[in-house]
Structures are given as structure tokens and as C-alpha cells.
């Protein structure tokens, strides 16, 4: 039988965001796979050159609706390093807390999508119901369910409501119990293991060769986690475990994320119980950042986020480079699609928890229909924001 090329994307019912995976199939087996990214570019790195650091912070909050705290944290880490600002400890603790709550919501979201992709819709409904608990906390702390806007240069924008800490702790207890339940489901519910074990295996060697990061790498036995490698905020004093799994298959990626949910609950509880006193932000932060350069690294829910900031002594950054974890993980996932079955492609692609908005943050212009240049205007962005993209 002749080989057939099957495009999944850029627009495709199985994808939530536009990206192209071009699969060459021989019968049901995928013999070749390639990816084309760039369908979701918004010109952010260029726009950042014309914005003040504070405006860039707001812009980068909108790189992604799921891991917005990841990007702003990464950006402030780099910017504060250049400016030589030492954030008060309470500010760092609140950043850590929001980061872990974000990880919990993101992993629960992913668990639901993974369940949905393999026809286990009960898991989807359950995990998304539980996710509302953490979304409520995020909304109370930050004022928003998404695009938290908690980070600012020199600390956080709001203090955490002290009188609510007990309520949050109770919600964290429930979340931890539910996470334990999902771990039980993963290990004891036979259909899940039967569907996912041995499927789309990314070997440890391949994962290292292709620089896989985050849970995708950890599920292949690569012990990579910025919270351990290079602790930022207050991670150096929090006791928690680095979760890895050796199988490298889809099942491993479920196990790693479910066990990480439990760890994140522990971290969130530790931070809430040991919230340092004092100010949560610096009173004075310079508008002009002295010339210099720095790299911010942050462990997002999907893996290593890295920002490079070059300052030139003005109010605007000279360059503010962003690289989101999905960008780093697509090559490994595409590589391992080869040899898989086409029926496994949706869950295989979903297994890296792809976020294409993060991956594509750059280009500017295009209108396919008219062939004219068109631009994303602020009102279009706000429209998209309202639609929750």
C-alpha cells in the first residue's frame, strides 16, 4: 500500500490550538512525522522592544492562558537579577504559592484532556471538577482565574488574604486526597494501564539526546527540574520530592503528573503554613533598568521555561527572548510518533501537554484569504482574551 500523508492541523478538530503535525502513514503505522509551528504568532518579542519593563510583564502574562505565572516569573527573575533587586521573602513565598497552584490547575487540566483523548471521560469530568477548587483559590488570591497578574517587578501586586489561609488549607487537603485518588486510579484501574502502557515510548537516551524537559522528560527517567537544579524563590527550603518514572511511555507521563500533583499540594501547604512576615514587594523599583543581561529559568507545569533579557539602561528591554517548554518538547514527541499507530497520535501529542500559544509568540502579519498584510490589533487581542484563548 502506498504511503499517505495525513495532516493533523493547523486547524483540526483534535487540536485545541493551531499547529501542524504532518504524519506519513503506511496503513495504520506512522512511518514519518514532522511538525510545523508558527500558526499562533503574535509578535511579542518584537513588541517587547517598544514597551517598558512593566508593560512587557503584562504582555508576557498573555503569552499563555494556562501558565501565565510561569512566563512572568521567568521574566521578573531575569529583570530583577539585572537590576540587582532583592525581593522580600513574603513576595517570594506568594510567587511560589501561585506557581504551585498553577501547576496543580495545569496538571488537573491535562489529566482531564488525557482522559478525554483515550475515551475516559469520567476522569475528565472528575479532574476538571476538582480543578475548580484550585481555580477558586487562584481567583481569590490574584483576582483572576487566568492571567493572574500577581507578579510585579520587585515582588507581588497583592498580599494574600490572611484570614482565608485556613480555607485554602482545607481545599489543599481535598485536592491532595483527590490527587491520591487519581494515583490509585492510575495504578489500579486496569484499562488505563492497558491503553497507555508501552505506547509512544520515549527512551531515556532519546529524551536526553533531544533535551526533553519537564514531566515529559521525567517520565522517561530524566531527573530534570529547575526547582532542584537551580532553586529560585523559596524552593531551597521546601521539602519535596522529584518525581521520575522509568517507563517513558504514555502511562509514565500520567503517573509523573499525578504524583507531582501530590507534591505540589505539599509545597502549597508548606508555603501557606510557613508564610513569612514582612512586606510583599519593594517600595521603590527603578523604571530604568541598568545595562546588563540575565537568564531566568523557571520550572513551569510543562517544563523548563527560559527567558533571556538584555537591558540597555533605558525603560525598555533591548531584547526579551522567550522559550516555552513545549517548544523544547515537540521534537522528541514528533520523533517518537514514528513507529506509533495513527490512532495513538492524538493522545501522544497531548501527552507532552502542548501549549502552542507559548511556543509561538513571535510573528506579526498575514491574511491568507486576501493575501494582504493584516495585524493583530489590541481589540482583536482583547476579543481573543474574552474568548478565553
Amino acid at each position, binding site marked *: 500500500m502506498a504511503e499517505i500523508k495525513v495532516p493533523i492541523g493547523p486547524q483540526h478538530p483534535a487540536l485545541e490550538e493551531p499547529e501542524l503535525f504532518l504524519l506519513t502513514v503506511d496503513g495504520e503505522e506512522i512511518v514519518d512525522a514532522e511538525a*510545523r*509551528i*508558527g500558526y499562533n*504568532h503574535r*509578535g511579542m*518579542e*518584537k*513588541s517587547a*522592544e*517598544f514597551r517598558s519593563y512593566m508593560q512587557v510583564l503584562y504582555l508576557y502574562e498573555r503569552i499563555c492562558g494556562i501558565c501565565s505565572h510561569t512566563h512572568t516569573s521567568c521574566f521578573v527573575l531575569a529583570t530583577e*537579577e539585572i537590576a540587582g533587586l532583592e525581593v522580600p521573602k513574603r513576595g517570594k513565598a506568594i510567587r511560589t504559592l501561585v506557581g504551585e497552584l498553577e501547576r496543580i490547575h495545569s496538571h488537573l487540566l491535562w489529566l482531564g484532556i488525557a482522559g478525554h483523548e483515550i475515551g475516559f471521560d469520567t476522569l475528565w469530568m472528575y479532574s476538571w471538577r476538582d480543578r475548580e477548587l484550585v481555580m477558586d483559590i487562584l481567583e481569590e488570591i490574584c483576582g483572576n482565574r487566568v492571567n493572574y497578574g500577581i507578579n510585579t517587578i520587585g515582588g507581588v501586586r497583592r498580599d494574600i488574604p490572611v484570614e482565608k489561609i485556613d480555607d485554602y488549607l482545607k481545599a489543599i487537603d481535598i485536592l491532595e486526597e483527590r490527587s491520591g485518588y487519581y494515583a490509585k486510579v492510575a495504578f489500579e484501574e486496569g484499562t488505563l494501564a492497558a491503553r497507555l502502557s508501552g505506547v509512544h515510548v520515549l527512551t531515556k537516551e532519546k529524551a*536526553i*539526546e*533531544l*533535551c526533553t524537559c519537564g514531566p515529559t522528560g521525567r517520565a522517561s527517567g530524566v*531527573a*530534570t527540574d529547575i526547582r*532542584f*537544579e*537551580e*532553586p529560585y524563590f523559596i524552593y*531551597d527550603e521546601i521539602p519535596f*520530592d*522529584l518525581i521520575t518514572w522509568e517507563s517513558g511511555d504514555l502511562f509514565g507521563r500520567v503517573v509523573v503528573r499525578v504524583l507531582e500533583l501530590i507534591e505540589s499540594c505539599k509545597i502549597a501547604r508548606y508555603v501557606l503554613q510557613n508564610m513569612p512576615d514582612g512586606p510583599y514587594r519593594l517600595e521603590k523599583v527603578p523604571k530604568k533598568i541598568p545595562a546588563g*543581561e*540575565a*537568564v531566568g*529559568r523557571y520550572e513551569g507545569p510543562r517544563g*523548563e521555561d*527560559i527567558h*533571556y533579557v*538584555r537591558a540597555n539602561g533605558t525603560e525598555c528591554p*533591548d*531584547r526579551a*527572548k522567550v*522559550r516555552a517548554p513545549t*517548544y*523544547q518538547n515537540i*521534537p522528541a514527541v514528533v520523533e517518537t510518533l514514528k513507529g506509533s499507530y495513527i490512532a495513538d497520535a492524538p493522545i501522544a501529542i497531548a501527552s507532552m501537554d502542548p501549549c502552542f500559544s507559548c511556543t*509561538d509568540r*513571535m*510573528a*506579526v*502579519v*498575514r491574511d491568507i484569504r486576501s*493575501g494582504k*498584510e493584516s*495585524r493583530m*490589533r*489590541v481589540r482583536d487581542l482583547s476579543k481573543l482574551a474574552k474568548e478565553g484563548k
Partner: protein
Amino acid sequence: MSREFKNIDAELKSDLETQFGQKVEVVNTRPHRLFVTIDRDNLVEVIQYLKEKHGLTYLSTITGLDAVEHFEVIYHLFLDGAQINVKAIIPTDDPRIASVTPMLPIANWYEKEVSEMLGITIEGHPNPEGYMQLPEDWPEGEYPLRKNWPAKERGVR
């Protein structure tokens, strides 16, 4: 899991300076951060050395930037204990640099991004044709991350 954070900054700095002498300028901006400035002709040699001597496997990303008097391409690398940024300086009138994809396959897309955003030719890139990030019908000779690219006229705001 042990929580010891190795610090190999000083060791690495002196090793690179011994090995490459005048060819490298190593700055240790803070713990776990090294900036290594090199001429673009020495790129392959330095990456190869880090790979063979120090077991480098991890490339985070590649930043390309226009510093007006020259271009810079920065390779963000990670070794256990140190994050290294190898900064290659490229003259603006001869924008080309060797590909590191043969040594670090993950570089493939990052190099392509640098190439199309800044118009820097990546010599020996396995897949130089076409755009990866930019639209297929992007006009030739327009490099959006160059400082002299007429951003405002093109609608960037």
C-alpha cells in the same frame, strides 16, 4: 533525592580559560551563570569541547539579537551545576555562523528561528529551505528582529 546544588562555576571558568586562552572571555555573573563570549569562528570548537570534556547534552534555546554594531547568537546550555551562555559575535556585514545541529539536534528549530528573524545564514543546517516560524509568504529580505526593520511601518505596536 539529594538537594545539593553543585557549584562548578570557578572550575569551569578556569578550565575554559586554560583551554581556549584569548579566544574566550568568561564572565561569572552570579552563581550557576556563566557568559562565554567567543568569535563565531570558534563556536563549533567550544561546543565540541564542552560536549566531550564536560558531557554537555542540554541546549535550552538559542537567542539571536541585533546589537547594532554586530549580531549576537547566544547558546543557552546547561551542565549539571552551571548554566552556560555561549555568546558568538557575528559581524553585521557577513552574517553567517556554523550550525551546531550535528552536535545538538535540538538546535535545528532554534537555528532556523535565528536565521529567519535576523537573516543570519546557518552554515551546514540540515533543513535551510522555507520558513518555520514566519508565514510561507513572508517577503524575502525582511528580518523582523533586526533593529533597522521598520517595525512601526509594518504594524508592530
